[in-house]
C-alpha cells in the first residue's frame, strides 16, 4: 500500500490550491481526479473573474487554471488523472480505480504499443482533503429527458472544452451567475439565445452579467418557468408560462419558443458522498446547496485528518474555492507538523481576510434571500435590472460611475455592490475611485483627465465600463465598448447602435477597433453615434447580422421599432465626415 502525507481528491481550484500549499512545506501530496484533464471547471471559464488583484481578478478562468497547474508542478504535487476514488475507509485508506500501463514486450516497437487496463489500488495518507466539487441540479417538466435538454455546465463543457456548439437556438432556465455567464458564452459561440427564464421574481446573478446578455437582445422572463419541452426524438420547442408567488402556473400566460436546446442552470449540489462514507458528520439542512460536511474555518470535518474544501463543503464560486483550498492546505501542514503553528497561523489569517473580502456586498452569503433596496451608498437600486436585465435610461444617471463631461471620459455602469475593483488599478490617470471598500461602486474621480486608453474598459470583468465622448463634432458622439465576439468589425463598418435592452436605437459607424495583449482578448470598439445616443447606445451590431430573418433587428423592424424613427434622422449629420475620419483612424488603430 502506497503511503503519502496528503491525498487530495479532486484537481479543481480548491484541491489544487490545497495541494500547492501543503507541498510547499515539504509534504508528499498526491491528487486524484477522475477526469482526463485537471483543473475542474476552471478550464471552461473563459470569462474574466471578479474580485481584487489578490483574487486574480480580471484574469480569465482558464488562465488561472494554467497558473495553478504550473504552481502545483513547481511545488512537486503529483496529479493522477483518470483516477476515480471509489471509497474512503477507516484509518484514511483511499481506494482508487485507475489505469495501469503495461509496456509492450520490448517497449520500443511502435507497432506494439503499450496497453492499458484498469485496476483498483489502495493508498493511505495521514490527511485527506475531499475537494470533489458539485454537480448540476435538474428540474422536472414534461420532456426534461429529451435529448437537447442539458445542464448549462454541460453546454459550457461542449462549447469551451470540446469546441462543439450545443445547439442553434437555446432557451436558458436560471438567471444565476451560471445561467447568465453561459448564456453570454452561447452567444459568443454563435448560438441564438431565445430567452432567459427564471421562476424567481428577480435575477439571481450579477447585474453586470445580465446587462451584457440583455444588450445582445436576449429577453428575460422572470417569474416564468418551463411548462413543457416539445419534441419526439429531440427538442423542437419549449413552452414557458408565468408563475404566481407560490410558483403555480398562471393560466393563459403561456409563451412558445422554437428552440433545439434547453439549458438548465438551477443550482448545484455538493458531491459529498465520499465524506459521508468516511463517517463525517453531515449537515442536511440544505444551506450549502445540499448535503455538506460540518467543517470549521479550515475545512476540518468531524473525522480527524479528513478535510473538505470548495463546493463540496458548500456551494460558492471558484475564487473562494481557491482560498478555502489554501486555508485547508495550510492547516493540514500545521496538523501534520510540517508547518509551525505561528507561521501557519499568519498565513491562514491572511487567506481568511482575503476570503472575507470576497464574501462582501449584495450577493454575500449572509445577504442571500434579503431584499436589498439601496446600495451601500444609499442609492436606490435599479429595479429594471433585476426584472429585465438592464438598467433603464431613467435609472442609470443616479449611479456614481455615470457622469457627464466634455471630452472623452469613462462611464461605469456598475450599479450593485459586488466585491470587485480591477478598474481602479487599471486607470493610470486615477480617473476611477473605489477606495478601500472593495464593494463600493466605482466613481469618477473629480478633476482627473481621461486619455481614452481603454484599460478600464478591458479590465472590467462585467464589461460594464464604456468610454464616452458626448460631442465629437456637430451632432455626433463616440462610444467605446468592450466587444468579445468574432469576427471583429472593422473600422468603417456600418451597423446599428443597440440600447441596453438590445434594441437598435440608431445607426452606428465603427471608427476604431483596438486589440492589444493588455486587453486580454477584449476588443475595444469605438462607434460613432448621434449625439443624443451617447448615453444610450451600448452595443454594436453590423448590418450583416441584421439581415437574417431571426435577427433582433429584422424582428423589431417588423414590429416597427425605433430604427426607422431614431436611426434615419439622428445620424445624418455624421455621415460624410465620419467616413474620411475613420480611414485615418484605421491606420493608427493598434491591431
Amino acid at each position, binding site marked *: 500500500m*502506497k503511503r503519502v*502525507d496528503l491525498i487530495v481528491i479532486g484537481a479543481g481550484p480548491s484541491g489544487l490550491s490545497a495541494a500547492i500549499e501543503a507541498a510547499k512545506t515539504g509534504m508528499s501530496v498526491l491528487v486524484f481526479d477522475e477526469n482526463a484533464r485537471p483543473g475542474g471547471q476552471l478550464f471552461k471559464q473563459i470569462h474574466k473573474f471578479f474580485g481584487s488583484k489578490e483574487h486574480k481578478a480580471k484574469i480569465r478562468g482558464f488562465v488561472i487554471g494554467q497558473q495553478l497547474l504550473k504552481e502545483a508542478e513547481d511545488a512537486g504535487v503529483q496529479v493522477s488523472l483518470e483516477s476515480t*476514488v*471509489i471509497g474512503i475507509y477507516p484509518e484514511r485508506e483511499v481506494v482508487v480505480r485507475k489505469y495501469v500501463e503495461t509496456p509492450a514486450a520490448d517497449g520500443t516497437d511502435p507497432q506494439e504499443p503499450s496497453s492499458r487496463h484498469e*485496476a483498483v489500488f489502495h493508498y493511505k495518507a495521514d490527511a485527506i482533503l475531499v475537494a470533489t466539487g458539485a454537480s448540476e441540479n435538474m428540474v422536472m417538466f414534461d420532456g426534461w429527458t429529451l435529448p437537447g435538454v442539458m445542464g448549462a455546465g454541460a453546454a459550457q463543457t461542449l462549447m469551451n472544452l470540446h469546441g462543439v456548439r450545443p445547439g442553434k437556438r437555446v432557451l436558458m432556465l436560471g438567471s444565476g451567475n451560471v445561467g447568465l455567464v453561459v448564456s453570454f458564452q452561447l452567444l459568443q459561440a454563435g448560438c441564438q439565445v431565445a430567452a432567459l427564464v427564471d421562476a424567481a421574481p428577480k435575477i439571481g446573478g450579477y447585474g453586470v452579467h445580465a446587462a451584457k446578455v440583455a444588450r445582445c437582445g436576449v429577453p428575460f422572463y422572470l417569474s416564468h418557468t418551463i411548462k413543457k419541452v416539445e419534441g419526439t426524438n429531440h427538442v423542437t420547442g419549449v413552452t414557458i408560462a408565468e408563475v404566481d408567488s407560490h410558483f403555480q402556473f398562471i393560466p393563459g400566460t403561456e409563451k412558445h419558443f422554437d428552440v433545439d436546446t434547453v439549458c438548465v442552470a438551477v443550482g448545484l449540489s455538493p458531491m459529498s458522498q465520499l465524506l459521508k462514507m468516511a463517517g463525517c458528520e453531515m449537515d*442536511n439542512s440544505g444551506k450549502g446547496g445540499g448535503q455538506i460536511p460540518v467543517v470549521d474555518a479550515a475545512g476540518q470535518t468531524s473525522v480527524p485528518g479528513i478535510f473538505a474544501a470548495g463546493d463540496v463543503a458548500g456551494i460558492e464560486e471558484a475564487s473562494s474555492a481557491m482560498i478555502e483550498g489554501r486555508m485547508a492546505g495550510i492547516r493540514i501542514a500545521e496538523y501534520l507538523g510540517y508547518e509551525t503553528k505561528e507561521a501557519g497561523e499568519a498565513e491562514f489569517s491572511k487567506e481568511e481576510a482575503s476570503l472575507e473580502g470576497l464574501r462582501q456586498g449584495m450577493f454575500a452569503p449572509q445577504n442571500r434571500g434579503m431584499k436589498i433596496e439601496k446600495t451601500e451608498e444609499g442609492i436606490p437600486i435599479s429595479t429594471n435590472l433585476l426584472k429585465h436585465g438592464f438598467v433603464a435610461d431613467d435609472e442609470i444617471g443616479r449611479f456614481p460611475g455615470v457622469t457627464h463631461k466634455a471630452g472623452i471620459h469613462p462611464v461605469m455602469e456598475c450599479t450593485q455592490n459586488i466585491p470587485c475593483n480591477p478598474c481602479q488599478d487599471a486607470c493610470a490617470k486615477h480617473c476611477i475611485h473605489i477606495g478601500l471598500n472593495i464593494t463600493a461602486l466605482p466613481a469618477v474621480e473629480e478633476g482627473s483627465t481621461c486619455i481614452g486608453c481603454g484599460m478600464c474598459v478591458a479590465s472590467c470583468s462585467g464589461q460594464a465600463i464604456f468610454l464616452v465622448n458626448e460631442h465629437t463634432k456637430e451632432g455626433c458622439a463616440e462610444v467605446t465598448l468592450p466587444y468579445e465576439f468574432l469576427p471583429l468589425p472593422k473600422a468603417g463598418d456600418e451597423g446599428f447602435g443597440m440600447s441596453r435592452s438590445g434594441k437598435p436605437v440608431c445607426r452606428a459607424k465603427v471608427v476604431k477597433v483596438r486589440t492589444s495583449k493588455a486587453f486580454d482578448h477584449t476588443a475595444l470598439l469605438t462607434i460613432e453615434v448621434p449625439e443624443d445616443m451617447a448615453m444610450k447606445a451600448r452595443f454594436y451590431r453590423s448590418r450583416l447580422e441584421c439581415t437574417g430573418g431571426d435577427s433582433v433587428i429584422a424582428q423589431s423592424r417588423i414590429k416597427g421599432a425605433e430604427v426607422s424613427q431614431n436611426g434615419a434622422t439622428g445620424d445624418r449629420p455624421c455621415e460624410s465626415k465620419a467616413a474620411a475620419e475613420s480611414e485615418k483612424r484605421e491606420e493608427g488603430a493598434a491591431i
Partner: protein
Amino acid sequence: MRTDRSKDLGPCLPMEGDDRIVCRCEEVTQGEIRQAVHDGMFTMTEIRRYLRCGMGLCQGQTCSRLVSGIVARELGIRPGELRPASSRAPMRPLEMSIWANECQAPDGAAETKKGGAGDEKC
C-alpha cells in the same frame, strides 16, 4: 432520527406528471415513487431498494434531489428532514472485472517529497 411509521398519508391520488421519468438510469416515474411512499417506503434507503432509483449509472447524482423532493412532499415534510440514503463504495459504477483486479501499490513512505502515483505493479 426515527421514522414515524404511523403517519396516515391517505389514498395515493393521481397527480399531474405521474408518468414523468424521475430516475433516468433506472427509468422510475414520479407515480411509482409516490405509490412507493404510500406503500410504506418512508426513507430514501427504502425507496432506493424498493424501486432502484438512484442505483444506476449516475448513482443518484441527478435524481436523488428530485426523488427526495417527491418523497418529502408525499410525507408532508421538508426534504432536509428526510434522512439521505447511505453512501457506500464504489462511489462510481465499477465493472466487477476491475473491482476484482486489486493491485498493490508499492509499500513504504513516498520515496521523495514529490510523492508519486507511478511505480504500481499489477
